[in-house]
Each structure stands twice: as C-alpha cells, then as structure tokens.
C-alpha cells in the first residue's frame, strides 16, 4: 500500500481581503477560488461640459424682462425708456378691437404703450 500524498493545506480565499461592498469581489461571475478580477477602472467623471452661452438676460431696464412682474414693476414715476438710445417711431397696424382692448389695459394698469411694446419686442427677439 502506498502512502497517500499529503493534502495541501487550507489557503486564504482569493477574495478574503475584498470588502463585500466592493463590486469587484462578487463571485457570481467566477468560480470560487479563482483569483478575483482586477478592479475595474473607475468610471471617469464626465468632463465638465461648457454650457451653451445663454442669451444675456437684459436686466438693466425695468421692462426688459419677459415676465409680467417686470412689466408690472415699472410704474409711471419710475418709468424709463426701454432703451437708452434714440427713440424712433414704429407704425404698426392692428385690428381695431385689439387696439381698443390694448388701450383699456394700459389705462387700467397705468402703463405706456411705448414701454409695453418695447418690452414685448425685446422678449420676442430674445426668445
């Protein structure tokens, strides 16, 4: 009868030093006792993207915003021209009913047609 070869001693498991919370230590993907795969390259942080330069919001004039608040903020006494440049005339044609409604709203809200229309045109250009 031959003497059986001595049994190799127990060794530490290949993943004994891998923290269970480390995904590279998962054994569902490989047989036990196999050397764990090297940790995957960490996913690089996304390069900071250069945000598209938004059109500058014009805050210098009281009526250059596009919200109703900015329109409301401009009272008669604090009113300034929508633009510091030279004021020019712009002739437009509107339906008579719309002009009537517009005038009534200007009176009720103590607004000037020039200021409101300049703000609307600016908002339309900046949209």
């Amino acid at each position, binding site marked *: 009868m031959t003497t059986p070869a001595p*049994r190799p*001693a*127990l*060794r*530490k*498991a*290949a*993943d*004994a*030093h*891998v*923290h*269970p919370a480390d995904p590279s*230590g*998962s*054994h*569902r993907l490989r*047989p*036990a*006792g196999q050397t764990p795969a090297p940790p995957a390259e960490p996913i690089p942080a996304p390069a900071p993207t250069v945000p598209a330069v938004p059109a500058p919001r014009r805050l210098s004039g009281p009526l250059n915003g596009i919200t109703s608040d900015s329109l409301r903020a401009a009272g008669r006494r604090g009113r300034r021209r929508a633009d510091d440049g030279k004021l020019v005339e712009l002739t437009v044609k509107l339906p008579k009913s719309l002009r009537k409604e517009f005038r009534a709203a200007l009176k009720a809200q103590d607004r000037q047609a020039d200021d409101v229309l300049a703000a609307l045109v600016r908002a339309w250009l900046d949209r």
Partner: protein
Amino acid sequence: MGIVAHGRLPGMAMLAVISLKGGVGKTSVALGLAATAWAAGHRTLVVDLDPQANATAALDPEAYEFTTNDVLADGRLGIAEDAIVASRWGPGIDVIAGERALEHRAHAEGPDSALRLRTTLSGALDRYHTVLIDCPPSLGELTRNALAAAPAALIVTEPSYFALQGAEQALEAVEVARAATNLGLRPAGVVVNRVRRSSEHAYRLEELRRAYPELVLEPPIPDRTAMAAAQGAAVPITSLRAPGAQDLTRRFATLAGHIEEALS
C-alpha cells in the same frame, strides 16, 4: 444533547441555528447552548457562518488565519479541520471563525455550492459531541449550506409579529432543504428568545405555542442583560454568577434537554 448523526461520535448533536429575521438573538442562543454543552463536559464546536462574525467575537479565539469563508471557497473534503481553532473560553470548545468576507459565499457557485460545508466538515467532526452552526439571518447560500450539513435545524424567534412570520418561513426552508439536499434534516424546534414581560409578548408567545404546539421549545429565553454582559466579556453565560446569568444557565440547560428529547 444527543443524537446519532452522520456516523460520528455516538451521542453527537449537530444543529444549524437559523432565523430568517435579524435581531432575534440567534447567535445568543447558539452561544448559550454551546456554553451549556461545554459546561456539561461535551467537546463542542461552533461553526460561524454569519458574516457579522458575532459568535467568533464572543468565543474569542486566539490568533487564527482561516475562516469559514476560506473553507467554503476551498471546498475540499475534510478541509474544515485546518480552520478549527480553540476558543479562549477554555479547553474543550473550538470554533471555525466567521468573517465579513463570507458575504462572497452568500451566492450559489456551481451545482455543489450548497453542499460545500457538508463536504468540508466530513471527517473533521469526529472528536466533537456538539456542533452548532450559527447562520446569517437570511436564506442565502450560507444558510442552505448549513441546512445541507446538519441533521437538525433549530429555529430562533422572538415573540413579535414579524418574527412569527420569520419562524414560519424558516420552517418552510427546512422542508425545502430536506427535499433538495438533506433527506435527514428535521426541525429541532423553535426557541422563543428575548421575551419580556409585556402583554404583546405574552400574546405572541401564546400564538406561537398554538401555531406550533409540538415545535415550540420550553422554556422561553428572557431578554436579560447578563447575556450581553457575557458576550461583551467573551465568557460563557454559565461562568457568570449574577442571578440573571444563573437563570439563563438553568433555562439553556432545560432547553438543551428538550432539544435532545425532540431529536431522540
């Protein structure tokens, strides 16, 4: 404790101590029974299959290199012998330590994955009268290994609604494991642990007794600070002289006797 199991020492008891709910004191019961068996002169081994390794900390083995994680990763017949170390409780009680990395073994790794503990313990337990396997509080591959290796499963619960459900699920798991991997497996009983004097606990305890009249083991184990003190000092509960510890010692001795009767 005494049953003939897997052809080892006559009278050897091997129990998988399980609970599918955490925090019921499963490890405390395993340690209490280990202390009782050891104090009775039985050579005792605790196999720590819980990645939290609380049983290992309480048994406080001297320097050790290998754990149940290494044993299960290796998987060779009888290799668990190499991982057995002496507990500092004293001569006659040993441990196969657990460790956090056991989480890596909590998933199936091939067709014989659930049989690794049984294979590795084969031939390594000949000198023990009592073997207790402390399982994690879940039904993963570690618990499946314990249920495939042990001839009996001891279910630990506490008198609460959720724990009741956990006990029911644990009993189902024992049935499934018996059919799948271990035809000799049977429930050793249900230990009700951490019982306090409250109407809710009294109600749930009675509910358990009604649901499992033949499985609930007496006496229930009260929630006592002596248990935490023993674990914190890494000493067996049987070595403490405080009245609470003495009461627990008596209860665990009675419980061990009832487990022996249940399995005989």
